[in-house]
């Protein structure tokens, strides 16, 4: 029998595989958007919505910050939120100029 994981902050192999599968599937969606030359606010919202979820998964699961002190999750997720929000504002500004 496997001894209990002394460092439970790291996800289990099955959980990591699930996260990887989602990340790859979401990347295929973004690639399809590019292949079809799809554009417009709805497409960009979908693409960056997926990028936001992917980034959150990297931060919480792969970087293993899920069980880190709240401050570190706020700093990293705050970075992701600010960058995505600024891109959305810039895209909107470009549409209206």
């Amino acid at each position, binding site marked *: 029998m496997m001894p209990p994981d002394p460092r439970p902050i790291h996800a289990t192999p099955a959980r990591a595989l699930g996260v990887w599968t989602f990340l*790859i599937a979401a990347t295929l969606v973004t690639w399809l958007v590019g292949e079809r030359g799809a554009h417009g606010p709805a497409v960009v919202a979908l*693409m960056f919505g997926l990028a936001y979820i992917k980034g959150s998964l990297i931060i919480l699961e792969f970087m293993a910050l899920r069980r880190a002190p709240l401050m570190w999750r706020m700093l990293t997720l705050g970075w992701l939120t600010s960058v995505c929000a600024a891109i959305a504002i*810039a895209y909107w500004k470009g549409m209206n100029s």
Partner: protein
Amino acid sequence: MNTPAYTLDARAADATAPTPHLPGDLAIWIFILAELLAFGVFLVAYAFARSGDVAGFDARQLGLDRDAGAINTVLLLTSSFFVVRATQAVAAGACARASGWLVGAIGCGLGFVVIKVFEYAEKFGAGVTLSSSTFDMFYLSLTFFHFMHVLLGLVILAALWLGTRQRRYGPDNMNGIESGAAYWHMVDLVWLILFPLVYVMR
């Protein structure tokens, strides 16, 4: 004064719950935050520069190889997954298994480098330079800045691989591998925003 029983129960429950813990060294996280801030400013600068010349940026963007960009995304994500598996292997006391996962991670990283070099060669051949257009300036400098981080990340992964070969890490000595892994995931995280922003958004 007697301590109420419920307080003791609460303490017992706390003892079994995992305590919040920052994986790796505090210094690497401060470094990662500084890197994220620099990339963040750069990515947002691209987005606002584009908003002033949407037609010009969209026209130049058509020349990018989105297939190569998507394959590179898959390579970085897979590499990150392998690094997670290596970290899990070390946590389980299986250093030999961890070095196998790290070989896979380094292989994917090298794949990224090879594809990027071909992409740059094609671009330079087509006359793309830092001064050929504002889009080209951003495309070259943003992706090259990221490329340099991939190269540094590969050096770090190679050092981790050596460490696992020499059995320097283990369940009680995770600091090195957790710090290196966090840096590699940061490189992946930045690319996840860079790819849709520069290669696809229009």
